[in-house]
């Protein structure tokens, strides 16, 4: 078997909301049901799971994914507690399938009933003794990288705001987005929004919301008998510089993180950046979108915002980016958020994105994490050839 004989055959997203009445396990199970139904499969068809266990309940023993065999009542041939989900889980699933450990893998996750209480989401403020006393949280780590970049390329601030406004406006007209109906926004709205951590205002930064996301991965052979056109894995790459949010990210080390992963992924796929039709970049903030264009080889260092503006990253642009509204406007569901990127890439490639369908979206890029996080991953997905 080859990489492009691994296919995503089902995607499932629960409603994405600011605060859910459910818990994380319920939304992960809901998303799994939706993804299996979308794939035309039953839970008894699953023989591999990369889902960890979001709680509540479950055993305290790792791997948490094994608890899913109890919940679903199915014996499993393979499990993986992929960290995070999204692309790393897809690569894990592909490995399990390519080595004959499983034929049909469920990836599911998300968060619900965990936000609120006047604090930012717990996953954004790791309890490290060399981080916590100084009041750092995830956005501040990204900000310390951004401040170095803007000292070199001050013009990028305006372009960041244009990027944030464009992606938020894409989400504004997506009825499934958490921020549906909010906006439209201009770059000036972004620049004059309440500041959170310089250079970012509230509108430069992604949401923290609740919901579940799941995908089902299987062999291309099996996929051919299922309802939707199979979306195959053309290439993938990962980079891990160091543990996230402990030792601070240094601009010169982290700015281009993703470039090696992109060379790997594009090399496997036999494609280049100009072949990408839709880019589901990991838009944790406005500058990260520009940074990824630079790191992934779409343009040079310091050119990311100009590239975005000249190319057009809205639905009518030459490179529609974050076509569901992204983490900025659609949803960000913690460790499950990277799976949202896979789901939207799959919808676009197989032509099931509804009103937000981009014409001739044959090759999609889906990504996870970024510079302040000090790791990055991406996958290239396309129709079976």
């Amino acid at each position, binding site marked *: 078997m080859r990489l492009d004989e691994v296919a995503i055959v089902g995607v499932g997203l629960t409603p994405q909301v600011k605060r859910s009445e459910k818990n994380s396990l319920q939304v992960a199970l809901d998303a799994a049901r939706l993804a299996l139904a979308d794939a035309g499969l039953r839970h008894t068809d699953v023989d591999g799971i990369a889902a960890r266990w979001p709680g509540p309940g479950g055993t305290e023993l790792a791997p948490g994914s094994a608890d899913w065999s109890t919940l679903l009542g199915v014996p499993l041939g393979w499990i993986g507690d992929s960290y995070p989900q999204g692309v790393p889980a897809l690569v894990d699933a592909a490995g399990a399938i390519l080595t004959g450990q499983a034929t049909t893998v469920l990836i599911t996750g998300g968060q619900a009933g965990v936000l609120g209480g006047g*604090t930012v989401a717990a996953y954004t403020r790791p309890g490290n003794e060399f981080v916590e*006393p100084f*009041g750092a949280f995830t956005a*501040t780590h990204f900000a310390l990288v951004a401040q170095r970049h803007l000292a070199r390329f001050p013009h990028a601030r305006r372009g960041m705001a244009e990027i944030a406004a464009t992606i938020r406006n894409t989400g504004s007209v997506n009825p499934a987005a958490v921020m549906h109906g909010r906006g439209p926004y201009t770059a000036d709205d972004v620049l004059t929004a*309440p500041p959170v951590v310089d250079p970012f205002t509230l509108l430069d930064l992604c949401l923290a919301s609740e919901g579940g996301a799941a995908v089902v991965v299987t062999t291309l052979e099996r996929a051919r008998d299922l309802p939707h056109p199979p979306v195959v894995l053309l290439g993938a790459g990962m980079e891990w510089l160091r543990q996230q949010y402990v*030792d601070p990210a240094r*601009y010169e080390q982290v700015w281009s993180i993703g470039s090696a992963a992109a060379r790997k992924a594009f090399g496997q796929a036999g494609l280049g950046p100009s072949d990408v039709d839709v880019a589901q970049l990991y838009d944790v903030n406005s500058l990260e979108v520009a940074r990824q264009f630079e790191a992934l080889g779409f343009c040079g260092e310091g050119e990311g915002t100009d590239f975005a503006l000249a190319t057009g990253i809205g639905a009518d642009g030459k490179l529609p980016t974050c076509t569901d509204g992204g983490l900025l406007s659609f949803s960000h569901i913690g460790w499950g958020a990277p799976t949202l990127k896979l789901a939207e890439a799959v919808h676009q490639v197989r032509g099931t994105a509804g009103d937000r369908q981009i014409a001739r979206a044959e090759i999609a890029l889906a990504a996870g994490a970024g510079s302040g996080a000090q790791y990055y991953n991406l996958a290239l997905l396309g129709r079976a050839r």
Partner: protein
Amino acid sequence: MTELTAGFWSAAERRELVRPVCGDCGRNFFTPQIACPECLSENWSYEPSSGCGRVYSATVVHKASTPGVEVPFHLGIVDLDEGWSMLTTLVGSRLPAIDAPVEVTWLERDGRTVPAFRETA
């Protein structure tokens, strides 16, 4: 605090800034790890730092991640003269520029003495 980091915090109680230095290759590193990231030697110890360095990056935090934290405050990365760096609080009314010289000062925070840095006069 762990066995690995207790030496840092007990020095901080005395308002002394220390950092791990490898006894084999001389590398300075931070945060503390069980072995030197240059040569993997576990033969390292906490040595006093001059507390002098330069601002690598700095930002103003306008919104705290938890209630009860006064905003705005200044957060930065400081490169110490001995060749190591740390995430820290920057004190003073003005945000220091990148490359500004700074020196260590100390804050009492949640019952603990923590290092912060201020622009060198």
